[in-house]
């Protein structure tokens, strides 16, 4: 390690990537069925659930962080049950960050996937059903492949949004190196302590990273669109 990129910075980077990967994976597992249900259901409850999922888009992260902190706190019923099940309390731990990130980034994953599912329309799904595919089978053999662009966009947005998260993490995780000190928090720390160079390396790196990710997504989507329009 050199003075441009020391062990502490490396640790924050690793932690951020780990958080983003785990969060994205959980979001895909959780968000895809929610998106499917929101796209297909005709019941009124779906509007309520849809609104709840979208809330993190408009709420200040501190609000979300505050309530999550209260909810997960081992002093509360739910929080104490959770910490018993998982062996340790959630606030100020990596686990807590994962929970916060999943909730905070949920709309960024659910919305594009839901749009993709809705764009498929009834036609292909009905054709599949007429060819003896059960609803479960239809979901995996037709809906998921056709929603590929939305799933890609959702994953990228979920990942990038988690990498860039700050408010919820500060409220819920504090600033523990190796446990909860992710890049955004590290940058804030360096600026506070006037370590401008380190702050620049990390901040500049994040700009470069975000640019590459969004560009790559756009190119892949363009390629897919071209392929299906050929």
């Amino acid at each position, binding site marked *: 390690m050199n003075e441009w990129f020391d062990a502490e910075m490396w640790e924050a980077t690793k932690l951020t990537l780990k958080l983003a990967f785990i969060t994205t994976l959980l979001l895909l597992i959780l968000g895809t069925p929610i998106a499917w249900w929101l796209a297909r259901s005709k019941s009124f409850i779906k509007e309520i659930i849809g609104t709840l999922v979208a809330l993190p888009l408009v709420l200040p992260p501190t609000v979300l962080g505050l309530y999550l902190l209260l909810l997960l706190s081992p002093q509360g019923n739910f929080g104490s049950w959770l910490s018993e099940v998982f062996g340790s309390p959630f606030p100020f731990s990596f686990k807590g960050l994962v929970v916060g990130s999943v909730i905070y980034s949920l709309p960024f994953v659910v919305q594009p996937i839901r749009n993709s599912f809705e764009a498929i329309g009834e036609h292909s799904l009905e054709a*599949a059903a007429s*060819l003896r595919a059960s609803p479960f089978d239809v979901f995996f053999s037709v809906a998921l492949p056709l929603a590929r662009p939305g799933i890609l966009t959702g994953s990228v947005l979920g990942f990038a949004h988690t990498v860039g998260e700050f408010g919820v993490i500060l409220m819920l995780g504090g600033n523990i190196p190796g446990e909860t000190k992710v890049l955004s928090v590290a940058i804030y720390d360096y600026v506070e302590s006037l370590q401008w160079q380190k702050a620049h390396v990390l901040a500049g790196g994040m700009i470069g990273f975000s640019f590459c990710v969004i560009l790559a997504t756009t190119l892949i989507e363009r390629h897919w669109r071209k392929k299906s329009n050929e």
Partner: protein
Amino acid sequence: MSKFEAEFKGRLGNFEVDVFFTLPQTGITALFGPSGCGKTTILRCIAGLTQLEGNLVVDGKSWQNSSNFLPTHRRPIGYVFQDANLFPHLSVRGNLEYGLRRIQNTQKTKLWEEITEMLGLEALLDREPSKLSGGEKQRVAIARALLSAPEILLMDEPLSALDPFSRMEILPYLQRLHLDLKVPIVYVSHDLHEVEQLADWMILLKKGHVIAQGSISELLANPQLPLARLPEAAVILEGAMQNFDSKYCLSKISVNGGSLTLSQNLRVVGSRHRLRILAREVGIAKSWQDGDASFLNVLSAIIVDIQPFGEQQATVFLRLGKQANGDVLLARITRKSCDVLQLKEGDEVKALIKSVGLVGVPTVDQAG
């Protein structure tokens, strides 16, 4: 296929559906009627894609009754959609294999070979659906439906989204289906000419109700039904090739109540043909001496009904044969001619037929 009985009731949009009908064991049954009469809805009900109250018994098994509703994927149907509806993420081969992979059948290879050959798809297998023409897409869609080994094939206006050229390309395949397929086909259409070419049976619908069902020739010639009041009213006659006059290249076909001459070589004596005679191509004469005019087809007939058609014309229903026991023919003539000839029910007349068209494909009798 021993029994097919359907009964659907319910409200859909702005009209009431209330139908009961049965299907024959084989052949094409047309669900025919003007746009918005509920044809597609009824087809979707058979497929289980739309749910209305009712009863549906297919081949002795109940697909729907007051307590049970078999979901679409459990019904052994094949469904051909109006716009082909191929899966865009799969190649032609992938689309065809989709249904085939989901059925229990020991002879999949044989089925695959038969169907791809029947619809001429060998050259298209590795293409993407987006690279196919409209006609090719519809052929793939038909094959895909057949490869799921359906016990009944449901077709929802499979030609309506196609341009006239693609229609011409698909029709022969449909006619072949008609001959080769052992399962009944329900064919939704609002195009009478298409129905005349393909269907054996017809269920005539109006605003969600069945107004008639029966063989297509019967329904077309029925004075009580609106079909004979259409501008393009026609009848379908079935006949067997009798002999061929090689000097003038004319084939003689015997129909119920007379015989018709066609300027075509129909080759096989005894082969059965489907003839279409438009009402406006038929004239009437009170008396007739052979050799008086250029008409080749002059048949004895008896007037069974006369209906006005518009201000100037009338539709005359003629029963062929001297004993009035043959097929019915329609003649569209002017009201003036009707008055001048003093035509009335029961009159013995001659039907002068200007042209006879062949529709569908010939079938060869076992004996022929």
